[in-house]
């Protein structure tokens, strides 16, 4: 049963990824602009254009191009970037760690802000404390990461310049890193001076990404906790003599968190989607920033590669959420 | 021989068991009703009683064709409706009405009570003098006419259930299915609704299938009774006879398990 469900899940994932590939392929090829013309120096002849066209496979029919491209993708070949003239896969893999570190830091910040606030609000339900959390949460929720980013740039970049507002790491520093996971590696290598510099750069963009998610976690988890806390087994725990905090942590939290998990997973994919513009805003050298450049340069292979990588991350997050839901829920675990 | 409105033979209902649905293809079917034979007399309230999982609600839904039976015949007023497609059912729908257990769920929250009662009448060509008809339907169930302008949430539980009755009876149907309609109510309200339904049934000559888990309520209201267990009929017959001399052990157990509001010291140990 469980295995069957898992296989079904993998199948739908594959269908989703294929759909994404088709959509992005079709969308970028109805574009009126000619990427080849953009990369040639003025005065190049028509035969130069034809030669390049053939080189990038753009002379074939759309379905043919798609089959060739998809065949390459399945073998790990995403093609060559037109504007950067490099292998798409290595370009993407070079930038992906920066984005993953930023998104993960943002997720941790959102959980660190949202979780305790949700518990506090549920504990103080019906009081002014809860009302305050509701108002703040409602406002934080409706302001998107882009605006938070700008606001934080003003506050921490201009009014009180505590943090960096541009780039990933100070350019003057000498980087001993072997991988692109700078933050992780700086910690592993015990180079905390570098960690501090990286965090100083990541703090504001991560906070901008984290705030809307923190608000959603606060409100959803608090609501879920309140519902669970009206159930008989929680009342029973109070009668047993457990204190309110014990009751929340022992009995309510896990059952309240489970139903919010799926929604928080979806919201986390939104957060990752938000890195595109936030990276741009903070000139942070991640995948999203590269994606915008790729669109502006009409770099078709690079756009396709990046979009597909994002889609892969999204479906993997959803899969991870489903799996952890199944693992945490005894009802499913014992199918 | 009493005049029969429903004649049911070999009624089977199976529903897909989504819990055991395989990866591809349809879910296996789970048998809910295992071939029921019974009749419902005209102008008579028949009680259908059983514990949870007995299939009584599924039976009711098959009678009013919210479900399509998987086998058997359901002859209603001369038509076998067991497998009629929806268009062919349409002219019969007017005569197959239903009152639901939970009026919070069965009354559309965004419509006035008047609109809720009027909609079925308009649909079945009774659009003329509609306000008068709505007022009459409300009066019939003992509600003031000005309730037509109210919404569900402005009514008490008993009043909501009266609206459910008014809506079902507005079409003057030949048959009404009442599914656990008093189980959510307090005893005092329950007594009012039972008395009302009894009085309307005799005035209007209604044929009602009254589904309930409560034998005391069945005893109060129904002339005939069908006792169900696990998708089968255990016993059926006139209510008086069934209570006076139950033939089946299960019926006897069911009756003996009802706590009467009387002091009886060894009831618990019996």
């Amino acid at each position, binding site marked *: 049963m469980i295995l069957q469900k898992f296989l079904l899940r993998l199948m739908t994932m594959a269908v989703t990824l294929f759909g994404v590939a088709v959509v992005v392929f079709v969308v970028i090829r109805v574009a009126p602009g000619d990427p080849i013309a953009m990369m040639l120096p003025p005065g190049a002849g028509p035969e130069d254009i034809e030669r390049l066209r053939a080189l990038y496979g753009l002379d074939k029919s759309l379905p043919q191009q798609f089959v060739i491209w998809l065949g390459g993708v399945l073998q790990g070949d995403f093609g060559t970037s037109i504007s950067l003239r490099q292998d798409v896969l290595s370009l993407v893999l070079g930038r992906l760690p920066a984005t993953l570190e930023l998104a993960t830091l943002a997720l941790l910040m959102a959980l660190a802000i949202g979780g305790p606030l949700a518990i506090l609000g549920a504990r103080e339900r019906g009081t002014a404390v809860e009302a305050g959390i509701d108002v703040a949460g409602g406002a934080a929720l409706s302001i998107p990461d882009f605006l938070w980013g700008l606001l934080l740039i003003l506050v921490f970049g201009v009014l009180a310049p505590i943090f960096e507002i541009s780039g990933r790491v100070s350019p003057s520093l000498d980087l001993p890193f072997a991988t692109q996971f700078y933050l992780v590696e700086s910690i592993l290598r015990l180079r905390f001076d570098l960690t501090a510099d990286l965090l100083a750069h990541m703090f504001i963009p991560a906070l901008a990404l984290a705030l809307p998610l923190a608000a959603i976690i606060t409100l959803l988890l608090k609501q879920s906790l309140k519902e669970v806390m009206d159930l008989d087994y929680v009342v029973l725990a109070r009668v047993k003599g457990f204190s309110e905090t014990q009751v929340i942590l022992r009995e309510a939290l896990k059952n309240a968190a489970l139903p919010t998990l799926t929604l928080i997973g979806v919201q986390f994919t939104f957060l990752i989607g938000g890195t595109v513009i936030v990276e741009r805003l903070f000139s942070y050298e991640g995948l999203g920033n590269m994606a915008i450049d790729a669109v502006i340069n009409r770099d078709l292979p690079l756009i396709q590669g990046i979009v597909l990588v994002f889609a892969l991350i999204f479906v993997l997050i959803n899969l991870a959420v489903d799996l952890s839901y199944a693992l945490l829920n005894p009802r499913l675990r014992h199918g | 021989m009493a005049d029969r409105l429903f004649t049911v033979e070999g009624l089977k209902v199976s529903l897909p068991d989504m819990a055991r649905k395989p990866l591809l293809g349809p879910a296996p079917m789970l048998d809910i009703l295992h071939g029921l034979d019974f009749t419902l007399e005209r102008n008579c309230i028949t009680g259908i009683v059983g514990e949870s999982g007995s299939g009584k609600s599924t039976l009711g839904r098959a009678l009013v064709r919210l479900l399509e039976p998987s086998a058997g015949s359901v002859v209603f007023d001369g038509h076998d409706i067991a497998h009629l497609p929806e268009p062919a059912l349409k002219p019969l729908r007017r005569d197959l009405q239903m009152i639901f257990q939970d009026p919070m769920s069965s009354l559309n929250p965004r419509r006035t009570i008047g609109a809720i009662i009027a909609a079925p009448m308009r649909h079945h060509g009774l659009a003329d003098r509609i306000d008068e008809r709505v007022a009459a339907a409300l009066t019939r169930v003992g509600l003031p006419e000005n309730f037509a302008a109210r919404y569900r949430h402005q009514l008490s539980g008993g009043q909501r259930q009266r609206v459910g009755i008014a809506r079902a009876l507005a079409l003057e149907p030949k048959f009404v299915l009442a599914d656990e309609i008093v189980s959510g109510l307090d005893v005092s309200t329950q007594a009012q609704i039972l008395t009302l339904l009894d009085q309307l049934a005799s005035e209007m000559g209604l044929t009602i299938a009254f589904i309930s888990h409560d034998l005391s309520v069945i005893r109060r209201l129904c002339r005939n009774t069908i006792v169900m267990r696990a998708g089968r009929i255990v016993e059926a017959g006139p209510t008086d006879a069934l209570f006076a001399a139950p033939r089946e052990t299960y019926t006897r157990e069911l009756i003996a398990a009802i706590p009467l*509001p009387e002091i009886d010291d060894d009831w618990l140990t019996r």
Partner: protein
Amino acid sequence: MTAQPLCLSIGALSATLPNGDRVLRSVSLDVAAGEVHALVGESGAGKSMIGKALLGVLPPGVRQVEGSITLEGTRLETLAPAARRRLIGARTALIPQDPLTALNPSRRIGPQMTDRLTHILGWPAASARARIREMLAEVHIREPDRVIAAYPHELSGGMRQRVLIAAAFAAEPRLIVADEPTTALDVTVQKQILRLIADLQRRHGTAILFVTHDLGVVAKISQSVSVLYAGMVVERAPAPELFATPRHAYTKALMAATPRYTHPASSLQPVNSAVLAELALEVRAADTEWKRAHG
């Protein structure tokens, strides 16, 4: 009546909603040690609120504004919150209404049954485990090890209710609040559960505050009864007396409105509007007096 020691004594208990309306209107009642006292009434009568006030689990916004609750000689109001919680945990227990929501779906049955013994009462884990195995045997559960290791969804409704009853009696409480413990069950299961509660109650000498809306259940399980309407006790009597000669018009009306399979159709009478009008007057009089006393 002989002068048995009182297990629970509630005096002039009033509780209010956030808007100031009273849900309990100066409720007084006594429960003798080892006695089953039924609280009966229709929805909105406040019957569950009394148990919740005693156990300190009133819903958010509902406050006890007046009155005393005395449990085995200790006035609960005089205790600090933590001490009160410990006393409640040690001396009382709750059998809740809905066995489906009364067990934590993500914890195994065993720890849910032992946590009061080990975490609140400080029993060693081994003796707590031995104790619940004993209790499971008392509620006629044949495979205690399977049940202890099970998650709630692996047990039937009747089974879960047995587990809850066993857990309630496990710490030998002096008083159990049973809040409509059989309402969600089928009649045949209800009878088994009622029998079980009565058995254990007699064997352990536990007092029970039995909340129900069903006069039939009241007649079968309780020794004394309080009939409630709108948060007021309208009649209080030993059970045999109440059913033989109900005094208050509302009690009479309630009895006449309860259908009985032994009586033919005609005997059922809806509650008379005169009775309701009289009750409304009583409520108003009580509120006027209360307001005068409280400004």
